[in-house]
């Protein structure tokens, strides 16, 4: 993988599970050594100058929480600022600001043991910004957060980047909307290789003029994977819609005519078609085009595990 992220960029890394996103972030944050090759962060080699790198970076991993149950929110933020040499007054000011934007201000003096999981995740997110890093690595930062909290987090990142043009964000996410909204450039990676790299707009424009249809079909019926075998179907993805329980099916076809065959096959699979829409290109369709499947498929498969 050969990749350069410019200072001041908000850069997105998209890829299926096992693509190497988190491994790349662990290498760049000095938690793992590269098996070969070289990685530089702010000009410093992660393998030979880790302390120089660490002074300038921070990391937020979504789904994780930080701190100790006996400490309050304010004390936790202060604790982690002390590992970066942030002075007391600056730490207090930053903690107040971050608690404000993440909705933790009212909980400032509550112990972590009394916070909900979502609140603890927000705290973990705020912690990452306490050192005002030159480069922040956001690894699935909104994983597990509710819709409103995710929106707050995205809003904060957008503002942080806007107000600090010399700061850099490297974001991995499963949510295409997030990458589309925040990132100036996006790389789609799989098996440690870059499949596509450009601005979200350019990536969408680069898609071949292949029609993409979105179906809503009934949850019951036979397996949908057989649709891939239809001649003229380029790729497809499907997952259960969390609210309606119906299955959302996206199909990329060579020509509009192929959709008739898809509808016929769906009928044969005992799937009722509730709705059909022809879609405009999104980052998700770009992803499906390059990887051959959607991220939602992977989540559904992961959910089947024990």
């Amino acid at each position: 993988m050969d990749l350069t992220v410019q200072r001041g960029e908000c850069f997105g890394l998209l890829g299926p599970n096992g693509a190497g996103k988190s491994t790349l972030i662990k290498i760049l944050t000095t938690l793992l050594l590269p098996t070969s090759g070289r990685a530089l962060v702010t000009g410093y080699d992660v393998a030979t100058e880790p302390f120089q790198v660490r002074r300038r970076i921070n990391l937020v991993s979504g789904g994780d929480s930080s701190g100790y149950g006996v400490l309050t929110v304010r004390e936790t933020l202060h604790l982690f600022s002390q590992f970066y040499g942030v002075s007391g007054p600056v730490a207090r000011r930053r903690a107040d600001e971050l608690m404000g934007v993440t909705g933790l201000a009212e909980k400032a003096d509550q112990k972590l043991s009394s916070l909900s999981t979502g609140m603890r995740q927000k705290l973990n997110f705020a912690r990452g910004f306490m050192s005002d890093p030159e480069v922040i690595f956001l690894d699935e930062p909104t994983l597990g957060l509710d819709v409103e909290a995710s929106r707050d987090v995205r809003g904060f990142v957008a503002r942080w980047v806007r107000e600090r043009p010399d700061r850099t964000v490297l974001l991995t996410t499963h949510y295409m909307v997030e990458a589309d909204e925040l990132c100036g450039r996006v790389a789609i990676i799989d098996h440690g290789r870059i499949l596509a790299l450009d601005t979200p707009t350019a990536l969408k424009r680069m898609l071949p003029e292949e029609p993409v249809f979105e179906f809503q079909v009934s949850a019951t019926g036979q397996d949908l994977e057989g649709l891939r075998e239809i001649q003229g179907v380029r790729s497809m993805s499907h997952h259960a819609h969390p609210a309606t329980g119906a299955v959302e099916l996206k199909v990329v076809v060579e020509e509009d005519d192929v959709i008739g065959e898809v509808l016929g096959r769906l009928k044969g699979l005992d799937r009722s078609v509730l709705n059909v829409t022809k879609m405009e290109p999104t980052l998700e369709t770009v992803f499906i085009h390059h990887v051959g499947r959607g991220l939602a498929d992977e989540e559904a498969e992961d959910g089947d595990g024990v």
Partner: protein
Amino acid sequence: MESRLKQVLAMNLAAVFARAGVRVKASFRESSWVIGETIFPFLSMSAFVLVYRGLHAPREYEGFVVLGGAMIAYWNNVIWGMASQFFWEREQGQLQLYLITPVSRMSILIGMALGGIAMTTTRAAAILIGGMLLFHVELPLSRALPAFGLFLLTLGAAYSLGMILSSLFLLWGREVWHTATILQEPIYLFSGFYFPVSAMGAAVAIAGSILPVTLGLDGIRQVFYGKAAHGLLPLAWIPPIQVALTLVFLLVASVMLRYMENLGKHEGRLTVRGD
């Protein structure tokens, strides 16, 4: 160059105090810990005092038990608060947050040690004072200063050993629970927490002296009770041995930390939980 050095020192010092502060705050906020670390050791200690009293043993033996009871609180803290801590941090996904910081890992460990000592001192003092008041155990206060000096040397060596164990426990993974248990109850026996360690026989007692608490406790008893303490080694030998142990343990801890971190960076062990 000099200002950069000052900056690094200040940052590491702040990290030491910050990490120590977590434990100091915790010691006043977790009432269950007070019960587990004060009341239960106090009950064990009381049982031994009553056994000695029932056997009409010399009164010094009751003093041995009270001093041992206080020292047990520190040893438990070394095992559960130092040795196991990095393992628990990793299981909570928190170890990586320490490892990406620019401070020395030794600063974090020293912070944990100082905080642990501060936290445990309240428990140990409660056991000591409780034992003295309840069982009328006499400790000659005129010898308190040299005893305190030896006690500090013992803590230095014991917590340095805890630093080594913190890396080892991280490498041993889920066996940590058994390892901690092995280092708890048997050590109560081999360190002579409730009796003069020389009673175990010279070979066993000297083997047990690799643990700083064994020699430290033996020395402190000698300071307070002289020959009645049935000391294992001459008292004059003990302070230099404790200093030497501290230096060796600190050096080994530093090497172990580097080894653990390098191994983790090659194999991904520092961020993978539950291996």
